[in-house]
């Protein structure tokens, strides 16, 4: 099996796909948004409990491929306890990482565990999967009541 496939499907990603964390609706939520990828039918909902500008709790539900499921799972772990601005900044950094030119040196974005998704940049067709939960999260932060789509 080639190395870039292994790079895309790292064991952390496979583990979060099999056992997604925070895969539920938290007891207390005040912001929700749905993310849909019409191309492949991925559909997930992100629930947030935001108080005083801080993400107190976060969870998600829905169905999707390994990349979108693992991305949602790791996202929920990472943003719990973050200020809204921090979460937004992280989304920006994450998006830059997965859409970076595959030829360029991987930048030091300090994305911590999220850097397991750096292999996505070799697979442009999968960028939408990796960012679906993040789009929904961002939508929920502004809770416009609209459905986030990757299109």
């Amino acid at each position, binding site marked *: *099996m*080639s190395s*870039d*496939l*292994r790079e*895309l*499907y790292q064991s952390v990603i*496979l583990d979060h796909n*099999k056992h997604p964390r925070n895969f539920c609706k938290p007891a207390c939520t005040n912001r929700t948004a749905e993310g849909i990828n019409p*191309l*492949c*039918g*991925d*559909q997930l909902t992100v629930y947030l409990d935001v108080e005083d500008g801080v993400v107190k709790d976060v969870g998600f539900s829905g*169905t*999707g*491929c*390994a*990349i979108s*499921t693992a991305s949602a799972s790791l996202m929920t772990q990472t943003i719990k306890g973050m200020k809204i601005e921090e979460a937004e900044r992280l989304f920006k950094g994450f998006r830059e990482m997965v859409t970076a030119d595959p030829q360029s040196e991987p930048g030091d974005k300090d994305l911590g565990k999220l850097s397991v998704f750096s292999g996505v940049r070799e*697979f442009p*067709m*999968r960028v939408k*999967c990796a960012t679906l939960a993040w789009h929904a999260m961002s939508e929920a932060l502004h809770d416009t009541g609209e459905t986030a789509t990757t299109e």
Partner: protein
Amino acid sequence: MSSAEKLIPRDEGFDPARVKLDFPILKNTGLIFLDSAASAQKPQCVIDAIANCYSRDYANIHRGVYELSARATANFEAVRETTQLFIGAAEAREIVFVRNTTEAINLVAATYGRQNVGRGDEVLITEMEHHSNIVPWQMLCEEKGAVLKVAPMDDRGALMLDEFEKLLCTRTKIVAVAHISNALGTVNPVKEITRLAHAHGAVVVIDGAQAIPHHRVDVANLDCDFYALSGHKVFGPTGVGVLYGKAALLESMPPYQGGGSMIETVRFEKSTYADIPQRFEAGTPDIGGVAGFGAALDYVSELGLDSIERHERELLAYATDLLAEVPGLRLIGTAPQKAAVISFSLEGVHPHDVGSILDHEGIAVRTGHHCAQPVMEHFGVPATVRASLALYNTREDIDALVRALQTVRELFK
């Protein structure tokens, strides 16, 4: 050796490996293409026919008195006759050139449908239709206050013909059904469906997009009223499709789009319309595309649809047999009458991931809902992996697919 290999003799006269060499994209790249149900690849003769049209025989048609225009018109009309013979229509004027199957169905909905479907009337489709044979009828029904009825399929993906029959009544004005399901490969009994529909006074529209590259179609024998197909699925270029309609019905229908070519006379007070088929062909058509489409039909005829069908039936059995041995693989669509399409899911792996990994191994398959979301809903899956076969696919392609699926399983174990 698998049991399929033992039981089914190969067609000695038909060599798919040699056929593959006719297709530059397959010959030059080694690509294993298992997505022909979405769109088929093009043989060199089709590419040449398009190039020749533009480099030797091109002018607008049905207009000029000069020789080149007359020749372009003759070539264009000759393809109408080729198409007539290919699908067994009684007359060439029953062949209307459109963009694709979708436009052909929309044409019927917008003309015959608007003229004949009223409040409380019914349009009957099946559960396995492609979105293009659902949405135009939904739009028509919404506009007219008519009702869209849906005949169910069973858990193999076969149409429940008795349930279909029960849904027919005097209010049923149109029956629209796929000849072959794009998501499941189910071959529908369209001749019997037509007979039943006619007994209730309904006209029958067949979505033939998936049937035309695999199956000898004889519209006269089917007795269907309309038959829609796309050139690009039968190895022709994109941009050319066909609506077949019985002459008497086409003659009774109002125009689809207004413009040049479809008129007899134009006055500001009132215009009169051309005879069929020109009445439905407003504006300059895809002249180069039609040249390529004609070459594609000639190519298929030369190989022989019976040989193609035999080869694909053998390959489908071979593939079904091998795939059944892949642990965790569930076939979606196991109707007794099936053609050229194998939809499946792999336990614990989302189709999108399967598709990415297969792509990485040089195998193109389709993953997703295949523009048939109600089918996905029926089987309780968000999406499937679909491997679809055509005349250029070989046993080696299937072997590569099965090997790549082992890679998927290894990665996701």
